[in-house]
């Protein structure tokens, strides 16, 4: 089963996703911000990274940049609840920087599963 790293500073969401995906049988690791995620990536390479964009310390974009250097390449799903000024421009940036999938919060578990499994 796939190994997934969930990065979100919002505890409610981080734990929710972790729980939902674990129930689906995935091995899920969680990081509370970009720094934690980047540290984790030095230890292991997950199959899929689900990362929020706006976070304190290092943000999702940094996580994404670090992940792109990894070998083998993990799939990257960028998620965001919208920026402070406009809604989706951060996700568009993430897309440009190589995110495989972008999701606007809120989304359903089903949508997330599709994103994980789509190739």
């Amino acid at each position, binding site marked *: 089963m796939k190994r997934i790293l969930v990065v979100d500073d*919002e505890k*409610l*969401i981080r734990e*929710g*996703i972790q*729980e*939902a995906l674990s*129930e689906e049988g995935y091995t899920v690791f969680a990081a509370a911000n970009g720094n934690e995620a980047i540290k984790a990536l030095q230890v292991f390479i997950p199959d899929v990274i689900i990362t929020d964009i*706006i976070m304190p310390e290092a943000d999702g974009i940094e996580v994404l940049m670090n992940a792109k250097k990894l070998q083998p390449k993990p799939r990257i799903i960028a998620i*965001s*609840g*919208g*920026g*402070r*000024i*406009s*809604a*989706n*421009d951060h996700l*568009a940036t993430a897309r440009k920087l190589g995110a495989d999938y972008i999701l*606007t*919060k*809120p*989304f*359903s*578990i*089903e949508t997330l599963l599709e994103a994980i499994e789509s190739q």
Partner: protein
Amino acid sequence: MQFQNVSYRISSSERDFLRMLFQHSPLAYFEFNRFLRLSYINEQGINFSGYRQDEKIYRLTDFVPVSGSLRKQWEVNSTGTHLTEVGLQGKNGIRLYLNCLWWIIDNKGTFDGIACLGFDSTRYHQMMEELQKSTSQFKEFAQLLPETVFEMDTDGNFLFLNESSFEVFGYSKGDRINAFDMFVPEELPRIKENMKRTLSGEKIKGNAYLAKRKDGSTFPVLIYSDIIYQGGKPIGFRGFVVDISHIRMAEKALLESEEKYRSLTNRLPVGIYRTNREGKLLYANPAFIHMLGYDSPEEAFAHPVQDFYSEPDEREKLLQPLEPGEEYYQPEIHLKKKDGTRIIVKDRGKVYKSPEGQIYYDGIIEDITETHLLEEKLKQAEKLQAIGTLAGGIAHDFNNLLMGMQLYTEMALKEAGENEKLRKNLEKILLAQERGKQLLQQIVSFTNYPEDYPEKINLKDTVNNILDLIKDTIPETIDFRTDLNDCGLVNMKPVHVHQILQNLITNAIHAMEGKGRLTVTIRCSGKNGAAEKDRQTKHTGRYAIVSVEDTGCGISDKNINRIFEPFFTTKDVGLGTGLGLYIVHNLVKKYNGEIQVRSHPGEGTVLQIFLPIME
């Protein structure tokens, strides 16, 4: 204000300026109305004649010998090229003489009186009388005078010249002087002609000439003369030459200051006025006339000033408490143009009181309508922007909350299994969550999504298609009409056109409460100034104007400035989000358009959307 050098005419409103200028002048200033009765007299005039302004019985004909049509005579003869001497009866019965420059006062082409600026020449007449009494006395007397006194034969050879003459004309005692050398050559034919006419017994009016000093310099003079008889035959003339530089200088200074004042006030972009207590406009520069939309000064002068105010009693309220000498400043006054359009002006001025007790208001108005509108718009835009930023910030956190709601509800749904009641309740939470998500999307829908690529669409076709969809939602009791012109292409997403129309039509239907007329039109505007900001884009400078007009309840003045604010609604709780017009406003702005609203409570509302037409 204008002086035509040839005809010396002034308009009746310009007369006020003359009064002001000559009020304290050392020269006497009189005005006679169209019935030739004294209508104004300055301080020096009162000193001179002993008459006061209110002595209306004093008639011009009492001291000016006239024959035939007086008006004609003044127009033909007294054209200001020379001074005219008039004799008059002073208050105390003494015969007085005045040498005057005359103006015809002209009121829209109608003779409205005569004005005279002059100096007292009584003294010279008294001397002439003395002189006729005794020749020997005369010579002693003459030597003492500061003016030129002469006796000469008919060829201009002097028989006598007093001391002052040499000084005045710059000659030395030994110089041989001929009278004709003492004037510029151009004057000689007239001098000789007048001498001839005097000898034949005629009274000469034009006795002002340009004299020449020994050094060639010139100065204007007046000559008072009489014939010398010897054995019953005329042998020459005796008289005075009076330097009238001062009156000519006053006249020149007047013309110059007039010219400066006129060209300055005519070019100023602010309106300059003088009004009196009763509300008569006495003076106004072209900018003032233009600002109020009148075609000519005469047209504006025909109105009482109260007519220019949006609220006729506003002027009274503003000016009533002011005392003469006080200055006033009104940062915002609402005026009404000839066609009824309202303008907002700044008004700044001062109150004056004339010696006759008349109260004047001299002031400047500046049209600030445009600035005022821009400020209002800016305030509105800033407010919306601030709310937009706030909404964006809330959206991020709010979405996270919704995300949590969705995640846990979905997980709980899984756990619920066969428990139908629990499933239903959880599904309701999901439904509420979905509505929250849509609401939030509406709030932030105006922001620029990079993936939002507008397309060039034919507005008429798009609107037509959308109206086809919306038509079914319009109650049958509402008379629905359309008039769609094809203005060409606009650069928009069709979904946004839909969103705009849907919102406007929903509001219109609500406002009509089931009955009325709903009209949707598209009109094409010509090029206009509003397009300036889009110069860099491919915008043609023309706009398609989409109007949605209803005959509903209208929007009150109190609310009209707030309709574009988010969450502002007049609908009952639960019926409106207060986001419809906010979204329309933001979408229209996003496409560099404009939105305008006109509404009369009880009659209906028109919302106009201006969308730039593309090449």
